[in-house]
């Protein structure tokens, strides 16, 4: 069908943003598949989870009666829950700091453009693509008290005696943190690298002309321009760390004696080892509230800065 010359008055201004599209019925074809999946596997479980938290639902199929706020009351006075939360917060702190600092250092080093770029990218990022079970298997072997690489390295450095990397309550969480940093730093490294490479060259050239050395330029130009990226990375990292489960469950099962158990693992233990689906749902809701709180705090801070 040929296009007839449209009257001038009806010609749309193409320079304006997309005009409001007309109401469309065929939109259903596009939205229904997602809405169906979303409704069935996201929205409904969210609502049902909230309901379950007010019941004593049990894995065996018995239970399920409404018990009001009993689960919440019990959770707030349960030392195991607070201990798991404490472990999770401790884990978050001791991993977020290195995951930001080490990633930044790596990115700064690689961004200098020295030859071997693909080797660096591969070495630092490849671990990120490994499944948690693979990472846990590798590091469980490394942390073996007698035959493991970690002990061998420490012996080589002159430290005598066996270290219970995963069996000593004071050491276990640090060991898991080291594993986590090795595993996931590559992601932050790439974010930083991309950010550094958007910094215009002329800033560096101007500073060099003014006599600023490499370190000084890094300090005064690179770092300030990365502050927004850093903020984003910290937020992503904190949220991810709060949700930790895999490597803790796989390497120490929350031990020794609950010293490394995270909140999500506490939920798993309560629901499936202890059969208490209702109580676990309650803890999940409390945990969700914490996540929202962290996200809100961050949003408020950025909107105040922004």
């Amino acid at each position, binding site marked *: 069908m040929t296009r007839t010359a449209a009257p001038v008055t009806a010609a749309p201004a193409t320079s304006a943003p997309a005009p409001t599209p007309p109401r469309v019925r065929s939109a259903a074809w596009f939205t229904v598949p997602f809405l169906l999946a979303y409704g069935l596997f996201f929205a409904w479980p969210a609502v049902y989870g909230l309901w379950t938290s007010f019941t004593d639902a049990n894995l*065996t199929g018995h239970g399920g009666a409404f018990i009001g706020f*009993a689960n919440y009351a019990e959770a707030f006075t349960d030392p195991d829950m607070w201990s798991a939360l404490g472990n999770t917060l401790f884990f978050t702190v001791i991993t977020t700091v290195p995951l930001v600092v080490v990633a930044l250092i790596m990115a700064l080093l690689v961004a200098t453009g020295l030859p071997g770029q693909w080797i660096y990218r591969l070495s630092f990022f490849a671990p990120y693509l490994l499944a948690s079970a693979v990472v846990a298997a590798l590091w469980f072997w490394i942390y073996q008290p007698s035959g493991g690489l970690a002990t061998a390295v420490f012996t080589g450095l002159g430290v005598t005696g066996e270290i219970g990397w995963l*069996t000593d309550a004071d050491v276990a969480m640090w060991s898991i943190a080291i594993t986590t940093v090795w595993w996931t730093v590559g992601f932050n490294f790439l974010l930083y690298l991309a950010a550094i490479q958007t910094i215009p060259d002329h800033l560096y050239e101007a500073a060099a002309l003014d006599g600023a050395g490499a370190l000084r330029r890094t300090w005064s130009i690179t770092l300030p321009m990365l502050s927004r990226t850093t903020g984003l990375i910290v937020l992503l990292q904190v949220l991810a760390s709060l949700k930790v489960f895999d490597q803790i469950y796989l390497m120490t099962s929350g031990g020794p004696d609950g010293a490394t158990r995270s909140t999500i693992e506490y939920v798993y*233990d309560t629901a*499936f080892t202890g059969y208490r689906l209702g109580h676990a749902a309650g803890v999940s809701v409390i945990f969700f509230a914490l996540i929202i709180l962290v996200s809100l705090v961050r949003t408020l801070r950025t909107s105040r800065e922004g």
Partner: protein
Amino acid sequence: MQRAATRRSVLLGLLAGVGLVGCGGGGASDQAAARPIQLWHLFEGADGKVMTAMLDQVVARTSPVQATCFAWGAPYYTKLAMASAGGRPPDLAVMHASRLNGYAPGGLLQPYDMGVLARAGITEASFAPAVWERCRYQDELYALPLDTHPFVTFTNLDIAAKAGILGTDGQPAPITSQEQFVAVGRKLAEVTGGLGIAYGFLLDTAQAWRLFWGLYGQTGGEYDFAGPKARWDDAQAIRVVTFLASLFADGVLSRNLDYDGSVSAFTTGRAGMILSGEWEGASFVKSVKNLGAAPMPTLFDRPAGYADSHTFVLPRRELADPAAVERRVRAVAVAAGLVQEGLRWAGGGHIPAYLPIVADPRYGQLKPQSSYAQAAQSVFLDPPVPFAGPGTEFQKRMSAQLTRGFLGTDTPQATVAGMLAVVDDLLSIPRPA
């Protein structure tokens, strides 16, 4: 247009293909009568090798079996419960008898059909009454016992000979009092120059509990954990903890041994005797030339020793069609066959539950297993509460509390009170009717 259509149809075809495979896989793995009997267990290491050898024999006689080994303790039992709740559990699973009370009342298991068992050659008379009783719940048989595995003592007979504690039969003279126990420990320590009696408990989630509970059983073992408040004989419990604490304080037992350390101390000859589960016997036989064994000595009022029992259970499955019923019958046949292979299992150190094997002269020739076989007569099991058993919070927390009592960090009174508080705490967790 043409390309888009082709691309779309390729995508859809791929999706359908993989989906069909997925569906087929999901369905077939469940219904196909041809699928081997699925057996889940938690035997890693020495026990696992023996179980695999037993399965080879049984498979030849009954049915193909596919066995999967899971990590011992809570991971295994959690997966078993979830599989049973989900409706597609394995046909057969291993379970500690002490765990039965956490599964049978919840409806996660199915009882055995005595008729089917009889056809496989197993009746009530095949087992000792005490063993049989603890496999039953509400008058039905829910578990088929394979063995009893008690906490016993192993002795290095060479070191014992040098220490002068052997009797006329070349076996250690039976220990019948606390004083004698201490004396034996000191004499053995003189010979080895270090440890006399090895006992690993540090950071262990079960060892402390095993030793304590068996000895508590020797005092009469009264307890009432029916709730809501736990009760036991405080005086006797304090008596046991006091005795054990004195052993550590006086250097008869080392304060620093963990499980692996104690095993290695005994196998390398640095200790003359070890308090250990009999399941280590198979590895001791390899490293100690002259190995003796005996049930836990009676240090209190009557013979008793801590023990648990491995059994086979049938996870609940809807028997919807004749094929499923036939599978169930085959699974029972496999379980019965494995029980009847008990002689091989005894080679791994366990006391077979199947009486015909215990009576078998070949079993009598197994050394040192036959030396502690009578421990099966006087076992003191975990309390029949839903939260007891190996790998549970219960054993973990009791052991942690006991460790403080052993090392003197807590007084015996505080230790006993603390242990009772643990039971109260676990009793208070709401359980549906």
